[in-house]
């Protein structure tokens, strides 16, 4: 059996007395897209931030291409993470830079291209997400929400990463623009042959983006299967979540 692109075992993370990740296990094969669903506070964002190295987990292991990145030397860890592209929930575009400088930021920061070459590359990538080169001269504040998401996607794929993470890529967008962004994500992932993990609350988006799906509840993976089976999983928690039912095994914790 081939080595998974990403293997997570026993991942745990607590903030104070709140156990956010409580022993996460999963494998993700190369070229596969995994959609992670779950309620707010179930640990989805913390999971991908742990893989990205933005949060240090308390226990467990994260293997990328068979190498445990948590125990690797710093250089190897940074090299592994440089191969990951990330689209943040709100885009997280740099306000002080123009659109093209945002897109080419990774290339310029690593001193891998001159500014002229980086601009040409940025124009090319903007074209891949359906934006004209002239958009590159605007500032992020001049763009609509949908265009900002496109630019954020362009920035995530500019360095041609072999792993891509998407944190709520369609949040705040209208259904049509959401479908457009999902289509772009699928195209980019296929074109690059990347392995992808997407966090979403949007069930239509989950089925469009994912090959596989997993549900997190209280820091544990309670179900994992094909994304196409998400709406008829047979798991009571998944069914309650995907159909948006008030009654079921998941009870909202309300602070009184």
């Amino acid at each position, binding site marked *: 059996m081939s080595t998974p692109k990403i293997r997570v075992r026993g991942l745990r993370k607590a903030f104070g007395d709140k156990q956010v990740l409580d022993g996460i296990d999963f494998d993700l094969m190369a070229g596969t897209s995994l959609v992670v669903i779950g309620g707010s506070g179930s640990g989805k964002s913390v999971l991908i*931030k742990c893989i*990205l*190295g*933005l949060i240090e987990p308390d226990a467990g292991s994260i293997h990328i291409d068979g190498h445990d990145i948590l125990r690797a030397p710093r250089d190897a860890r*940074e090299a592994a*993470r*440089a191969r*990951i*592209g*990330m689209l*943040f*929930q*709100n885009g*997280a*575009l*740099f*306000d*002080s830079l123009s659109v093209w400088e945002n897109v080419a*930021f*990774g290339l310029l*920061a*690593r*001193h891998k291209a001159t500014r002229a070459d980086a601009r040409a590359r940025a124009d090319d990538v903007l074209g891949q997400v359906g934006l004209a080169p002239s958009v590159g001269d605007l500032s992020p504040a001049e763009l609509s929400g949908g265009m900002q998401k496109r630019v954020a996607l362009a*920035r995530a794929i500019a360095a041609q990463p072999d792993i891509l993470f998407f944190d709520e890529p369609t949040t705040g967008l209208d259904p049509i623009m959401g479908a457009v962004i999902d289509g772009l994500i699928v195209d980019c992932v296929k074109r690059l042959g990347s392995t992808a993990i997407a966090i979403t609350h949007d069930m239509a988006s989950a089925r469009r983006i994912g090959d596989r799906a997993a549900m997190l509840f209280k820091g544990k993976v309670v179900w994992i299967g094909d994304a196409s089976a998400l709406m008829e999983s047979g798991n009571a928690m998944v069914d309650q979540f995907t159909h948006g039912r008030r009654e079921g095994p998941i009870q909202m914790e309300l602070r009184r």
Partner: protein
Amino acid sequence: MNPLNGVAALGRGTIGAVRSTGTLTLFALNGLSHLLRPPFYGRAFLRALIDIGFFSLPVVALTAVFTGMVLALQSSTGLSRFSAGSAIASLVVLSVTRELGPVLAALMVAGRVGAAMAAEIGTMRVTDQIDALATLSTNPMKFLVAPRLLAGLVALPFLVLVADVLGVLGGTIIATVKLGFSVHTYLENTINFVQTGDVLSGLAKAAMFGFLIALLGCYHGYRSKGGAQGVGAATTAAVVSASVLILAFDYVLTELFFGQ
């Protein structure tokens, strides 16, 4: 009421103060260490230098001119009682170069630049832009903090040099227009009295103050959390802590340079 509660509160406060000092010191050392290790972000440094050094010029210049004018006016009323009006020039130039130039320029820059740094970096923190930097193989301390620390260190002495000149000019205006001194006599008194050490001590203070302003702006912005309210709190903390530390370090440096 348990009398030990007061002791416990004092202990908690002391531990908190020591912890904050340690965290700030480690943050400063981390930022400074990135000035010695490549890659270096020249454009980020230039942008910070222009923001601190060039765009602060008007407010520092106005502060210096008016300070020099007020000093000349106040000293004339005080010194005339002892028939020592000729000492106005020496009093103005000493006060401006040693104390008021560096301290007032630094306080003005703390309000203008320290607040802006905390707000910008704080907004980047709460909108995931700092995390985004890390995912783009860029160390946020190296890209955001180190260039600003260096820019603060370099820009403030330049601003204070301008403030020194304009402070003396303000004194000259009042001395000649209102107090009847000749320009030549007043400037001759100024030049004869001021020593290189007076100016250099002010510039050394300015470098320290510039570093403190940038450090506290970056530190509070970098650690901000909780959305708009958190960024607002970080901005306030940056200005207040920088202002207090400027005055505290002013005493320490004055003791170091001129203490007996």
